[in-house]
Protein backbone atom coordinates (compact mmCIF):
# COMPACT_ATOMS: atom_id res chain seq x y z
CA UNK A 1 0.00 0.00 0.00
CA UNK A 2 1.57 3.27 -1.10
CA UNK A 3 -0.98 5.63 0.44
CA UNK A 4 0.13 7.22 3.68
CA UNK A 5 -3.46 7.73 4.89
CA UNK A 6 -4.12 3.97 5.00
CA UNK A 7 -5.18 2.51 8.35
CA UNK A 8 -4.15 -0.87 9.72
CA UNK A 9 -6.65 -3.72 9.92
CA UNK A 10 -7.37 -3.51 13.66
CA UNK A 11 -7.95 0.24 13.52
CA UNK A 12 -10.14 -0.20 10.45
CA UNK A 13 -12.29 -2.87 12.12
CA UNK A 14 -12.74 -0.54 15.09
CA UNK A 15 -13.67 2.39 12.82
CA UNK A 16 -16.22 0.29 10.95
CA UNK A 17 -17.81 -0.94 14.16
CA UNK A 18 -18.05 2.61 15.52
CA UNK A 19 -19.36 3.95 12.20
CA UNK A 20 -22.01 1.24 12.27
CA UNK A 21 -23.18 2.73 15.58
CA UNK A 22 -23.42 6.13 13.87
CA UNK A 23 -20.34 7.53 15.59
CA UNK A 24 -19.67 10.78 13.64
CA UNK A 25 -15.99 10.69 14.60
CA UNK A 26 -15.60 7.25 13.06
CA UNK A 27 -17.26 8.35 9.82
CA UNK A 28 -14.99 11.37 9.67
CA UNK A 29 -11.99 9.10 10.24
CA UNK A 30 -13.12 6.77 7.44
CA UNK A 31 -13.45 9.76 5.14
CA UNK A 32 -10.01 10.91 6.23
CA UNK A 33 -8.57 7.47 5.47
CA UNK A 34 -10.39 6.78 2.21
CA UNK A 35 -11.77 10.07 0.89
CA UNK A 36 -8.73 11.01 -1.17
CA UNK A 37 -8.42 7.58 -2.71
CA UNK A 38 -12.10 7.34 -3.53
CA UNK A 39 -11.96 10.82 -5.04
CA UNK A 40 -8.86 9.93 -7.05
CA UNK A 41 -10.47 6.71 -8.27
CA UNK A 42 -13.72 8.30 -9.42
CA UNK A 43 -11.86 11.26 -10.92
CA UNK A 44 -9.63 8.97 -12.96
CA UNK A 45 -12.72 7.13 -14.20
CA UNK A 46 -14.79 10.19 -15.06
CA UNK A 47 -12.33 12.99 -15.70
CA UNK A 48 -14.70 15.47 -14.12
CA UNK A 49 -13.91 17.35 -10.95
CA UNK A 50 -17.51 18.30 -10.16
CA UNK A 51 -18.79 14.82 -10.88
CA UNK A 52 -16.04 13.38 -8.71
CA UNK A 53 -17.02 15.33 -5.62
CA UNK A 54 -20.64 14.26 -6.15
CA UNK A 55 -19.55 10.68 -6.65
CA UNK A 56 -17.39 10.76 -3.53
CA UNK A 57 -20.47 11.94 -1.59
CA UNK A 58 -22.67 9.31 -3.24
CA UNK A 59 -20.17 6.59 -2.40
CA UNK A 60 -19.99 7.49 1.29
CA UNK A 61 -23.75 8.04 1.57
CA UNK A 62 -24.34 4.59 0.13
CA UNK A 63 -21.70 3.22 2.48
CA UNK A 64 -23.49 4.70 5.49
CA UNK A 65 -26.83 3.29 4.31
CA UNK A 66 -25.38 -0.15 3.67
CA UNK A 67 -23.09 -0.31 6.70
CA UNK A 68 -25.67 -2.01 8.98
CA UNK A 69 -25.72 -4.98 6.61
CA UNK A 70 -21.96 -5.09 6.02
CA UNK A 71 -20.05 -7.95 7.62
CA UNK A 72 -16.40 -7.02 7.95
CA UNK A 73 -14.14 -9.87 6.89
CA UNK A 74 -11.10 -7.85 5.95
CA UNK A 75 -12.51 -6.84 2.58
CA UNK A 76 -13.51 -3.27 3.23
CA UNK A 77 -11.52 -1.97 0.25
CA UNK A 78 -13.32 -4.35 -2.09
CA UNK A 79 -16.68 -3.27 -0.72
CA UNK A 80 -15.95 0.45 -0.75
CA UNK A 81 -14.46 0.50 -4.24
CA UNK A 82 -17.30 -1.63 -5.55
CA UNK A 83 -19.72 0.99 -4.24
CA UNK A 84 -17.62 3.72 -5.86
CA UNK A 85 -17.40 1.86 -9.18
CA UNK A 86 -21.16 1.25 -9.17
CA UNK A 87 -21.78 4.93 -8.43
CA UNK A 88 -19.67 5.86 -11.47
CA UNK A 89 -21.53 3.36 -13.67
CA UNK A 90 -24.93 4.55 -12.41
CA UNK A 91 -24.02 8.13 -13.17
CA UNK A 92 -22.67 7.25 -16.62
CA UNK A 93 -25.87 5.33 -17.40
CA UNK A 94 -28.00 8.25 -16.27
CA UNK A 95 -25.90 10.59 -18.40
CA UNK A 96 -26.26 8.27 -21.38
CA UNK A 97 -30.01 8.27 -20.91
CA UNK A 98 -29.97 12.03 -20.97
CA UNK A 99 -27.82 11.77 -24.09
CA UNK A 100 -25.22 13.97 -22.52
CA UNK A 101 -21.51 13.67 -22.85
CA UNK A 102 -20.55 12.80 -19.33
CA UNK A 103 -17.69 10.36 -19.28
CA UNK A 104 -14.48 12.22 -19.87
CA UNK A 105 -15.62 15.74 -20.25
CA UNK A 106 -11.95 16.61 -20.39
CA UNK A 107 -11.93 18.83 -17.41
CA UNK A 108 -8.31 17.88 -17.37
CA UNK A 109 -6.74 20.71 -15.50
CA UNK A 110 -9.28 20.89 -12.73
CA UNK A 111 -8.40 18.00 -10.44
CA UNK A 112 -4.76 18.81 -10.51
CA UNK A 113 -5.41 22.46 -9.72
CA UNK A 114 -5.76 21.42 -6.12
CA UNK A 115 -2.40 19.67 -6.28
CA UNK A 116 -0.83 22.92 -7.42
CA UNK A 117 -1.98 24.58 -4.24
CA UNK A 118 0.68 22.70 -2.28
CA UNK A 119 4.48 22.55 -2.45
CA UNK A 120 7.10 24.01 -4.75
CA UNK A 121 5.63 26.07 -7.64
CA UNK A 122 7.79 24.48 -10.36
CA UNK A 123 7.24 20.96 -9.06
CA UNK A 124 3.52 21.73 -8.81
CA UNK A 125 3.33 22.86 -12.41
CA UNK A 126 5.23 19.82 -13.71
CA UNK A 127 3.26 17.34 -11.64
CA UNK A 128 -0.09 18.90 -12.53
CA UNK A 129 0.86 18.68 -16.20
CA UNK A 130 1.81 15.02 -15.74
CA UNK A 131 -1.52 14.37 -14.07
CA UNK A 132 -3.35 15.98 -16.98
CA UNK A 133 -1.43 13.91 -19.51
CA UNK A 134 -2.18 10.73 -17.59
CA UNK A 135 -5.86 11.67 -17.47
CA UNK A 136 -5.92 12.28 -21.22
CA UNK A 137 -4.26 8.92 -21.84
CA UNK A 138 -6.66 7.16 -19.47
CA UNK A 139 -9.59 8.66 -21.35
CA UNK A 140 -8.54 6.71 -24.44
CA UNK A 141 -8.74 3.35 -22.69
CA UNK A 142 -11.72 1.02 -22.60
CA UNK A 143 -13.74 1.80 -19.45
CA UNK A 144 -13.33 -1.77 -18.14
CA UNK A 145 -9.54 -1.63 -18.63
CA UNK A 146 -9.35 1.78 -16.99
CA UNK A 147 -11.32 0.54 -13.99
CA UNK A 148 -9.02 -2.43 -13.42
CA UNK A 149 -5.88 -0.31 -13.57
CA UNK A 150 -7.34 2.34 -11.28
CA UNK A 151 -8.65 -0.22 -8.81
CA UNK A 152 -5.14 -1.63 -8.51
CA UNK A 153 -3.71 1.85 -8.08
CA UNK A 154 -6.15 3.30 -5.55
CA UNK A 155 -7.29 0.29 -3.55
CA UNK A 156 -5.51 -2.33 -1.48
CA UNK A 157 -6.80 -5.05 -3.76
CA UNK A 158 -4.62 -7.57 -5.55
CA UNK A 159 -5.40 -8.43 -9.17
CA UNK A 160 -6.96 -11.67 -7.95
CA UNK A 161 -9.29 -9.73 -5.66
CA UNK A 162 -10.06 -7.27 -8.44
CA UNK A 163 -10.94 -10.15 -10.74
CA UNK A 164 -13.31 -11.49 -8.07
CA UNK A 165 -14.79 -8.05 -7.55
CA UNK A 166 -15.49 -7.58 -11.24
CA UNK A 167 -16.53 -11.20 -11.69
CA UNK A 168 -13.98 -11.93 -14.41
CA UNK A 169 -11.26 -14.60 -14.56
CA UNK A 170 -7.85 -13.56 -13.20
CA UNK A 171 -6.31 -14.02 -16.65
CA UNK A 172 -8.84 -11.60 -18.13
CA UNK A 173 -8.17 -8.98 -15.46
CA UNK A 174 -4.41 -9.32 -15.93
CA UNK A 175 -4.51 -9.17 -19.70
CA UNK A 176 -6.75 -6.11 -19.62
CA UNK A 177 -4.46 -4.39 -17.13
CA UNK A 178 -1.40 -5.39 -19.16
CA UNK A 179 -2.92 -4.00 -22.34
CA UNK A 180 -4.06 -0.80 -20.62
CA UNK A 181 -0.73 -0.13 -18.93
CA UNK A 182 1.10 -0.82 -22.18
CA UNK A 183 -1.02 1.78 -23.96
CA UNK A 184 -0.49 4.30 -21.19
CA UNK A 185 3.27 3.85 -21.30
CA UNK A 186 3.33 4.08 -25.08
CA UNK A 187 1.34 7.28 -24.92
CA UNK A 188 3.21 8.92 -22.05
CA UNK A 189 6.81 7.75 -22.16
CA UNK A 190 8.06 9.05 -25.52
CA UNK A 191 7.50 12.64 -24.49
CA UNK A 192 9.16 12.26 -21.08
Amino acid at each position, binding site marked *: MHFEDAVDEAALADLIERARRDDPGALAAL*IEAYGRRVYGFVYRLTGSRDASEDLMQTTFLRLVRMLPGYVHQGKFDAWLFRIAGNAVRDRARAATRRDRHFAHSNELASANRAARDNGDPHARAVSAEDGDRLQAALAELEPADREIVMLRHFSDLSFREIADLLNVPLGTALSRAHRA*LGRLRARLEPSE
Partner: protein
Amino acid sequence: MKGLRQLEAAVERDARWLRQFPDPVPPPGASERLVAALASHRRGSDRAIERIRPVGAIAAALLLGVGLLWQMPAERGRTVRDDPAAALRDWSAAVDDSTSQVDRLVTHAWLPADGDAEDADAALDDAIKSLDATLELGA
Protein backbone atom coordinates in the same frame (compact mmCIF):
# COMPACT_ATOMS: atom_id res chain seq x y z
CA MET B 1 -0.23 -21.26 -14.11
CA LYS B 2 3.39 -20.23 -14.33
CA GLY B 3 2.52 -17.98 -17.25
CA LEU B 4 -0.25 -16.38 -15.20
CA ARG B 5 2.13 -15.73 -12.30
CA GLN B 6 4.66 -14.18 -14.65
CA LEU B 7 2.00 -12.02 -16.21
CA GLU B 8 0.80 -10.96 -12.75
CA ALA B 9 4.36 -10.01 -11.71
CA ALA B 10 4.84 -8.02 -14.92
CA VAL B 11 1.54 -6.21 -14.55
CA GLU B 12 2.27 -5.43 -10.89
CA ARG B 13 5.58 -3.89 -12.03
CA ASP B 14 3.82 -1.82 -14.66
CA ALA B 15 1.14 -0.75 -12.21
CA ARG B 16 3.79 0.68 -9.88
CA TRP B 17 4.96 2.87 -12.76
CA LEU B 18 1.72 4.83 -12.32
CA ARG B 19 2.85 6.07 -8.91
CA GLN B 20 5.10 8.67 -10.49
CA PHE B 21 1.99 10.61 -11.50
CA PRO B 22 0.30 12.87 -8.98
CA ASP B 23 -3.03 11.62 -7.75
CA PRO B 24 -6.01 13.94 -8.05
CA VAL B 25 -6.73 15.82 -4.86
CA PRO B 26 -10.27 16.61 -3.71
CA PRO B 27 -11.12 20.32 -3.87
CA PRO B 28 -10.58 22.28 -0.65
CA GLY B 29 -13.33 21.65 1.87
CA ALA B 30 -14.62 18.53 0.08
CA SER B 31 -14.12 16.30 3.13
CA GLU B 32 -15.85 18.83 5.39
CA ARG B 33 -18.76 19.07 2.95
CA LEU B 34 -18.96 15.29 2.86
CA VAL B 35 -19.00 15.01 6.67
CA ALA B 36 -21.75 17.65 6.76
CA ALA B 37 -23.72 15.79 4.07
CA LEU B 38 -23.50 12.56 6.05
CA ALA B 39 -24.62 14.31 9.24
CA SER B 40 -27.52 15.89 7.36
CA HIS B 41 -28.43 12.50 5.91
CA ARG B 42 -28.46 10.97 9.41
CA ARG B 43 -30.68 13.76 10.74
CA GLY B 44 -32.97 13.35 7.73
CA SER B 45 -33.20 9.61 8.34
CA ASP B 46 -34.07 10.16 12.00
CA ARG B 47 -36.78 12.64 11.05
CA ALA B 48 -38.15 10.26 8.42
CA ILE B 49 -38.34 7.47 11.01
CA GLU B 50 -40.21 9.79 13.38
CA ARG B 51 -42.59 10.75 10.58
CA ILE B 52 -43.39 7.22 9.51
CA ARG B 53 -43.69 5.82 13.05
CA PRO B 54 -47.50 6.54 13.29
CA VAL B 55 -48.02 5.30 9.74
CA GLY B 56 -46.10 2.18 10.69
CA ALA B 57 -48.41 1.60 13.65
CA ILE B 58 -51.50 1.94 11.44
CA ALA B 59 -49.99 -0.34 8.82
CA ALA B 60 -49.21 -2.92 11.51
CA ALA B 61 -52.81 -2.76 12.77
CA LEU B 62 -54.12 -3.19 9.21
CA LEU B 63 -51.81 -6.12 8.63
CA LEU B 64 -53.03 -7.68 11.85
CA GLY B 65 -56.63 -7.18 10.73
CA VAL B 66 -55.93 -8.73 7.34
CA GLY B 67 -54.18 -11.61 9.07
CA LEU B 68 -57.20 -12.22 11.28
CA LEU B 69 -59.54 -12.12 8.29
CA TRP B 70 -57.25 -14.52 6.51
CA GLN B 71 -57.54 -16.94 9.41
CA MET B 72 -61.30 -16.46 9.90
CA PRO B 73 -63.27 -19.50 8.76
CA ALA B 74 -65.66 -18.81 5.95
CA GLU B 75 -68.98 -20.57 5.48
CA ARG B 76 -68.60 -24.37 5.78
CA GLY B 77 -65.41 -23.89 7.74
CA ARG B 78 -63.14 -23.19 4.76
CA THR B 79 -60.71 -20.32 4.85
CA VAL B 80 -59.11 -18.39 2.01
CA ARG B 81 -55.79 -19.85 3.08
CA ASP B 82 -57.12 -23.43 3.04
CA ASP B 83 -58.80 -23.28 -0.33
CA PRO B 84 -59.04 -19.89 -2.05
CA ALA B 85 -61.22 -21.18 -4.90
CA ALA B 86 -63.74 -22.83 -2.55
CA ALA B 87 -63.79 -19.79 -0.30
CA LEU B 88 -64.52 -17.63 -3.35
CA ARG B 89 -67.39 -19.91 -4.34
CA ASP B 90 -68.80 -19.73 -0.79
CA TRP B 91 -68.56 -15.99 -0.87
CA SER B 92 -70.28 -15.82 -4.29
CA ALA B 93 -73.10 -17.97 -2.97
CA ALA B 94 -73.46 -15.67 0.03
CA VAL B 95 -73.60 -12.67 -2.29
CA ASP B 96 -76.39 -14.34 -4.31
CA ASP B 97 -78.39 -14.81 -1.13
CA SER B 98 -77.64 -11.28 -0.09
CA THR B 99 -78.89 -9.96 -3.41
CA SER B 100 -82.29 -11.52 -2.84
CA GLN B 101 -82.36 -9.96 0.62
CA VAL B 102 -81.43 -6.61 -0.82
CA ASP B 103 -84.33 -6.95 -3.26
CA ARG B 104 -86.66 -7.52 -0.30
CA LEU B 105 -85.14 -4.58 1.52
CA VAL B 106 -85.59 -2.26 -1.46
CA THR B 107 -89.15 -3.46 -2.04
CA HIS B 108 -90.13 -2.76 1.59
CA ALA B 109 -88.22 0.49 1.71
CA TRP B 110 -90.30 1.84 -1.17
CA LEU B 111 -93.60 0.56 0.15
CA PRO B 112 -94.52 3.54 2.38
CA ALA B 113 -95.30 5.57 -0.71
CA ASP B 114 -98.23 3.27 -1.43
CA GLY B 115 -99.08 1.41 1.80
CA ASP B 116 -99.19 1.63 5.58
CA ALA B 117 -96.11 3.33 7.00
CA GLU B 118 -96.05 1.35 10.30
CA ASP B 119 -96.32 -1.97 8.49
CA ALA B 120 -93.64 -0.82 6.09
CA ASP B 121 -91.34 0.19 8.98
CA ALA B 122 -91.80 -3.19 10.63
CA ALA B 123 -91.20 -4.96 7.36
CA LEU B 124 -88.14 -2.84 6.74
CA ASP B 125 -86.77 -3.76 10.18
CA ASP B 126 -87.34 -7.43 9.40
CA ALA B 127 -85.66 -7.07 6.03
CA ILE B 128 -82.63 -5.34 7.57
CA LYS B 129 -82.32 -8.02 10.26
CA SER B 130 -82.60 -10.70 7.63
CA LEU B 131 -79.98 -9.02 5.50
CA ASP B 132 -77.68 -8.66 8.50
CA ALA B 133 -78.06 -12.33 9.28
CA THR B 134 -77.25 -13.27 5.70
CA LEU B 135 -74.21 -11.04 5.58
CA GLU B 136 -72.92 -12.40 8.90
CA LEU B 137 -73.36 -15.92 7.58
CA GLY B 138 -71.37 -15.09 4.47
CA ALA B 139 -68.54 -13.32 6.33
